Each structure stands twice: as structure tokens, then as C-alpha cells.
């Protein structure tokens, strides 16, 4: 058996090499999985990773990439700030739903008024909804020392029931002939999140995601708050010694990630999804956890990781329609990616040694 040996200084090479290596290993393992399912692995991998960007329908699918990547990036950046600080918000899915409901409710409340201010106010309401939902685990943690992982997750289930109630009750389309779901925002221009540049799939959510990526990067590398976030995650006692208040940090990080998830929800429901419906949420809040780690909890890395993950979604849909690959296979594929990433990550801080090559002088 091999032995692990701690490196004196983290390896810069592996810091950057880990995600590509994990992706390659996932492709290999995924290929084996697809082959076991009776598919041609090369064809599947090509359909997922190549065709959306360079294939026959790339003109349309390329746009889809940013549509999917936008919410993933927005949510993942918020999560990453918390993960960096050792604060585990895993209920982003709930915050995403609540942001969508809050924002949509504001818009639907004033239907059919046309005013330029409606959409900005909805954006603020969406961020507020996500923030509010994230404040529940945050306040419970700071006041009662309650585990934020479990509380934020429980609140996903609660948010899902509220969503069900919203789409069949208080936000239901009065002209929907009894079908569940709210009015469709595509027929309400003042509240619609339309494309700014359709060929790239750019809507306000994509803009927000890219801007947030840059801002978060500056925060982490240049600002004192970023330093404190990193310090609290790596050495909590040193953070207290530095003068960080753990409670303030929890409120800050949970708040940011909640607000960003809420924003993502609002942009989704007023844009690509179009309406509040029982299942408008597609698990972005959970996939964003993978995106955050794949991007090495670094905002710029997350932007890249968001696009890669979007590729697996878009390509996965292609593989599903063209090759009959079940949707769940893509979920497995994404899970494997996270496993390989976590496994390969050991090389950043450790090196492998075989027992017979002990470095005796």
C-alpha cells in the first residue's frame, strides 16, 4: 500500500490541475457506466461535451449554456463564500424557490401595470426572499448554536410545500382554467426577464452571474472581509484572535448566499421558466454545490465550472433525446465528478509515496 505524506506547502500545480484531472477521470468512469448501459460511450461523451458547442445545433445550444450556467454560477458563488468560512448552507434550493416566489408575487401583485421600475423592484424582492429564507438557519445558528446544515436543508422541504401552495393557491393564474401555475411572465413585458442578446443566451441573470463572479473574486483576494472568510474557514481560533465575530460572519455569508440564490430564482422564474409552477425548480440549488467545489471555491473558477456543468445539462438533454440516455445518468455523472474531485484534491496538500521509496539520504 501507498502512504500519504503532507506537503510543507500546498502544491500550486495540483491546485489548478485537480479539476481537469477529475473531469477526465469522470469521463472514463462515466464512459464505463454508459457502456454498461449498452450505449456507445464515445458517442455519449461526444454528445454531451462536444456537440452543444460545435455540433449541428450549436447555434441554439450555445445560448442554452449561459441560460443554465447563470443560476448555477450565482448560487455557487454564494455557497462558496460560506464554504470557505466553514459555514455550510446546503439549502440553496429553498432560498432559490423563495426568491422566485417573493419576486414573482411582487410582479403579479401589480399585474397588468406597465412600469419600468417593476422589474428592478422584483429583483430586489427576489434577493430579499432568498436572504430572508437563509436568515432562518443563520439566526438559529448564532442564537441557539443550531446546526445550519440540517436547518437549511429542512427548509428546502418547507419551501417546496410553499411552492406547491403558491402554484395551486395564492399565486395561481386566475385565468388558467384551473391548471396549477401562475400567470406566464412572457406575456407580461414589464416583469419579464427577456434576453438581452439571444444568440449567447444572455439575460439579466447571466449578467448578474458574471458581475458577481468578478466582485466576489475581488472581495476574496483584496478585501478584509474576504481575508476573514478564508481565515475563519481554515483556522477558526485564529479568526477570533484576528478579531472576527463568528456570529457576524455567519449572518454575512448566509445572507449573501441566500440573496444570490433568491436572485437566481427570480431570474429563472421570470425568464427561462416563465411562471411559478410546482416543479419550476430543477435542483440548481443542489447542483451548485458541485459547481462550487469544481470551481475550487474560487469565484472565477466557479464561472468556468458553471459552464462545464451547464454543458452536462444541455448535452445530457441531447443525449436523452438522441440516444435515449436516461436523465438520471447525468445526475450520476455529476455526482461522480464531485467524488473524483474530492479524491484528487488530496494531491494539493499531500503526496503519495510507496513504502520502498522512502527518502532516506
Amino acid at each position: 500500500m501507498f502512504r500519504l505524506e503532507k506537503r510543507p506547502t500546498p502544491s500550486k500545480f495540483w491546485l489548478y490541475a485537480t479539476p481537469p484531472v477529475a473531469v477526465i477521470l469522470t469521463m472514463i468512469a462515466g464512459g464505463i457506466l454508459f457502456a454498461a448501459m449498452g450505449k456507445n460511450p464515445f458517442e455519449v461523451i461526444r454528445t454531451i461535451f462536444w456537440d452543444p458547442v460545435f455540433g449541428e445545433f450549436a447555434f441554439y445550444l450555445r445560448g442554452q449554456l449561459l441560460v443554465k450556467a447563470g443560476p448555477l454560477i450565482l448560487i455557487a458563488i454564494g455557497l462558496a463564500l460560506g464554504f470557505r468560512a466553514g459555514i455550510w448552507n446546503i439549502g440553496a434550493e429553498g432560498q432559490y424557490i423563495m426568491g422566485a416566489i417573493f419576486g414573482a408575487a411582487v410582479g403579479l401583485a401589480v399585474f397588468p401595470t406597465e412600469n419600468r421600475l417593476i422589474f428592478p423592484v422584483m429583483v430586489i424582492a427576489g434577493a430579499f426572499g432568498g436572504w430572508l429564507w437563509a436568515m432562518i438557519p443563520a439566526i438559529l445558528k448564532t442564537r441557539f448554536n443550531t446546526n445550519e446544515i440540517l436547518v437549511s436543508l429542512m427548509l428546502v422541504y418547507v419551501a417546496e410545500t410553499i411552492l406547491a401552495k403558491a402554484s395551486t393557491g395564492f399565486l395561481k393564474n386566475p385565468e388558467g382554467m384551473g391548471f396549477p401555475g401562475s400567470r406566464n411572465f412572457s406575456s407580461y413585458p414589464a416583469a419579464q426577464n427577456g434576453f438581452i442578446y439571444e444568440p449567447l443566451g444572455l439575460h439579466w441573470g447571466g449578467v448578474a452571474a458574471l458581475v458577481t463572479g468578478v466582485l466576489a473574486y475581488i472581495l476574496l483576494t483584496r478585501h478584509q472581509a474576504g481575508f476573514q472568510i478564508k481565515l475563519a474557514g481554515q483556522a477558526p481560533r485564529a479568526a477570533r484572535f484576528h478579531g472576527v465575530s463568528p456570529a457576524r460572519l455567519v449572518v454575512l455569508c448566509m445572507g449573501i448566499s441566500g440573496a444570490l440564490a433568491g436572485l437566481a430564482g427570480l431570474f429563472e422564474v421570470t425568464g427561462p421558466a416563465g411562471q411559478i409552477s410546482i416543479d419550476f425548480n430543477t435542483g440548481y440549488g443542489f447542483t451548485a454545490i458541485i459547481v462550487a467545489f469544481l470551481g475550487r471555491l474560487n469565484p472565477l473558477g466557479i464561472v468556468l465550472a458553471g459552464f462545464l456543468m451547464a454543458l452536462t445539462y444541455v448535452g445530457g438533454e441531447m443525449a436523452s433525446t438522441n440516444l435515449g440516455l436516461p436523465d438520471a445518468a447525468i445526475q450520476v455523472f455529476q455526482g461522480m465528478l464531485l467524488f473524483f474531485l474530492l479524491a484528487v484534491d488530496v494531491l494539493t496538500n499531500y503526496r503519495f509515496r510507496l513504502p520502498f521509496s522512502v527518502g532516506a539520504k
Partner: protein
Amino acid sequence: MTTTRPELLRVEGITKAYPGVVANSDVSFAISEGEIHALLGENGAGKSTMVKMIYGLVRPDTGTMTLRGAAYQPAKPAEARRLGVAMVFQHFSLFEALNVAENVALGMENPPPMRELAARIRAVSEEYGLPLDPSRMVGDLSAGERQRVEIIRCLLQDPKLLIMDEPTSVLTPQEVEILFKTLRQLSSEGTAILYISHKLEEIKSLCDEATILRRGKVVATCTPRERTAREMAELMVGTALKTPERRQGQKGEVALGVSDLSAASPIPFGTSLKGVSFTVAKGEVLGIAGVAGNGQDELLLALSGELKAAADKVRVAGNAVGDLGPVERRKAGLVAAPEDRYGHAAAPDMSLVENAFLTAGVRKGLTKNGFVDWAGTRAFAEEIIKAYDVRTPGPDVAARALSGGNLQKFLMGRELMQGAAVIVINQPTWGVDAAAAAQIRQSILDRAGEGAAVVVISQDLDELLEVSDTFAVLNEGRLTKPRPTEGLTMDEIGLMMGGAHGMEVAHHVQA
């Protein structure tokens, strides 16, 4: 009398290398039955690695060991224990949330049922004058009592060889005497003892033979009684040591005043502070002694601002700061250096530059509108590295890559170079080699000479006697009244430290 006894353990040509470090190189020595053998060397000389190999925790790369004539290669501690080798650890071998009997059982191969074990613990502890209640939670015991748990755990297995790793660092002078009595009793019963230490006076009074290690190699074998402490020190360190010079500064007005400070401990199984009061004047060094776990960590937290109290309990230059956090206290002129380098005073995975910012950001003005001036911080880190002779490839390496002594020099420099009026340091030279320790002590004295008020909390009495003007002891969270250091005797200090904890009964029996 040592020559007539049969040989118990022989170590020959042992070498053990780790990447970048050769911990032991061609080490040989022998121990006879009933002999008390010292393994002497400074921090990092390879003593711990050597005994871990004897105890089966680490395997040597080359070399052989023989125990009573037979080849001895323990693959794991259980095998070592079965062959009669037992070890009392310096740290890390007790479980705070388990009781004494459970802790003892974990160190035995085939422990008897709990009730029988408890009875045996009582019997052995009485036989050797080490009273201990088997049902008590270890987390509630004093450092000295915890050591008794370890010793009794070993004695229950009838060891032929007992390894003791720095056993006196956690004891009061009176407790040391009792321990030595126990060890001599064991030795007279035929148990050999391998005694690891860097305290020369102790070794002179206790040990029959000594093997001196320097940088992993045996540099001398001698009979301690026939050598002076100074000779052994020079063998151990390799060069003649300078004692720090004291520049006699003028004592000024009071810079730090602590009055009736009480605080509950935030640490599990910690010690709360109870009515601590003292003052330190400009240019004065107050030494605070005490056995580990008597409130030292809590006192540091309460002074650094990590633990808050009522405003008027702590005053810096007359200003009430008791209710302020670390940032505000640094602004007010108080800097602090905690004991634990890895995770408290420094973030081990962060670079030296980032670690410089950790505490110096405030006083060195390294932030503008919340943004960090990394260039300025790097310059300050480089300044520290230069002034304190920190051996590092550069300021960008992770703190954990530095040796203990070098990191400690960096951290001391970080606090001492901020021009603060009040400096509080917990364990300035813990686990640091002698040369670095001397340098750190000198710089503390220099800062006091420049007019800083300094509080040094330490478990090393020699260090405190060397640097402090006034001397006080923390005992179970209470601080004795500070007294001038000059003219204090060891006996007086021992009594200030509370004598021997929990030994009253045994004391009477033995006296």
C-alpha cells in the same frame, strides 16, 4: 553499581529519515535492568522519534534493537506492551471525556472487567503514593493527576522498561519530587526507566546514565552525576550559550491594569478565571508561572480581547478596554501572542504575508476602506523575517512549512515589532530550540528596555526567572500577588504553585 546489572535493551545503529529531515542517524545505546537512563537533547534532536521506535509507533529504516538478548522489532504498541515496554506520553494519550478506569483500560492489552480494574487502580496508586479516583472524568483532572493516570496505566502491566517523555514539564516542583521518589522506587524494584528530558538539573539528580542527542546523532554518553550542567548543555546545543542581557530600563507609570477579572472558560474542561488582579508598569516584565491548565489560555484570551469582560476590568494606559474585542484592543496599544502556533496564533495553511496581516493590519495601517494593502503587508513580513532571522525561502510559503522555532520567531517578531505599549505572550519558547529561545527572550527584554509593559505567561520556571522583574503564579484560575523575582527560592515558588495537587493524604503517609 550500574555495571553489574544485566542488559535489558540495546539499540544499535538506528536510522530513521523523513522527507527533508533525518530524525535519527546511527543511534546506539544500551539500558540495564533497573537503570534510569536519560535521553537528552533539545527540541528537534530526535528524542521523540527514537522512543516512538522503541514503543512500536514508528519503524526504523535501518538498525537493530534487542530486548533481553532477543531481537526486538515491535510492529505496533500492543506488541511492545506485551514484551514489557510501557510509555508515558508528554501529550495526546488521554481521553478527556472518558473516566480514569476507561483511560487505563484503553492502554492495556487484556483489561479485566471494569470493577476489578478500578480496584487494581486503587491498589497500585496507593502502593506508589499516587492517589487517583478511577471513576473521575479525566477532563476534570489537573495536569499532574493526568500524568498519574498514564503512569498507573503503565504500572498495571508490570513493565520492564518504562519510557517517560518530558514528564516534569506539567508538574509543580513538589510534584516533581514525588514523581522522582516513585521512579526511584520502581528502579529499585528492577524496572528500567528511559527518561527523556532537556532539563539538566533533573537528570543530574535522577539518572544513572545519559545519552546525549544532537540533530539525530549521539554526541556523547556520560554519567550525569560526574558532569556539570553546563558541560552537558554545551554537548546538547553544540555551542556555548549566552544568557540574555537585561538592559535596565526606567520603570514608568502603570501601562496595564487588571482588576478582579473573572471569566468563565470557553474551552471544554477549561479553567475559569477567578478574581485576577495585577498591574504592569512601563518597562516591567511580569512573569506568570503555573502548571498547564490552570487558566493560562483563558488569561491570554481575556487579555487579547477574545474573551470579553466588564469595561473597567482591563485598562490599557488608563483606558477601560475590558469590553472591547481584539481589534479595538490592538488600537488601544495591547498586542497578544497565544501559545498554540498552529491554528490560534497563526493559520498554518496561510502564507507568512497573510499571517502578518492577521494581527498587524490594525496597528500597521494595512487596510484602506476595507481593502488590504498586500504590498505593505509583504514589506512588513519581510521586515520581520530580516529582523528576527527567520529561516524561510520567502514570505509566501505556508506557515506550516516553517520549523517550530522559526515560526515562533516570526510570530514573536510580528507582535513585538508593532510598537505596542503592552505585550502579552503565552509560552514564548514552547518547543523551540535553545538558540531561538535565547533570541526570543532577548528580544522580549529589549522591548521592555524600550519601555513596553510585558506579561510573559510560561510553564518554564527557568525562563521566567531569567526574564521577569515581578513574578506571580496562576493556580486553578487564581493569580497570586505578584512579587519581585529577585530573591525567590524554588521552594517558595513551589508553594505559590499550590504544592502537590491532590497529594495531601499521601504526603502525610510519606512524611
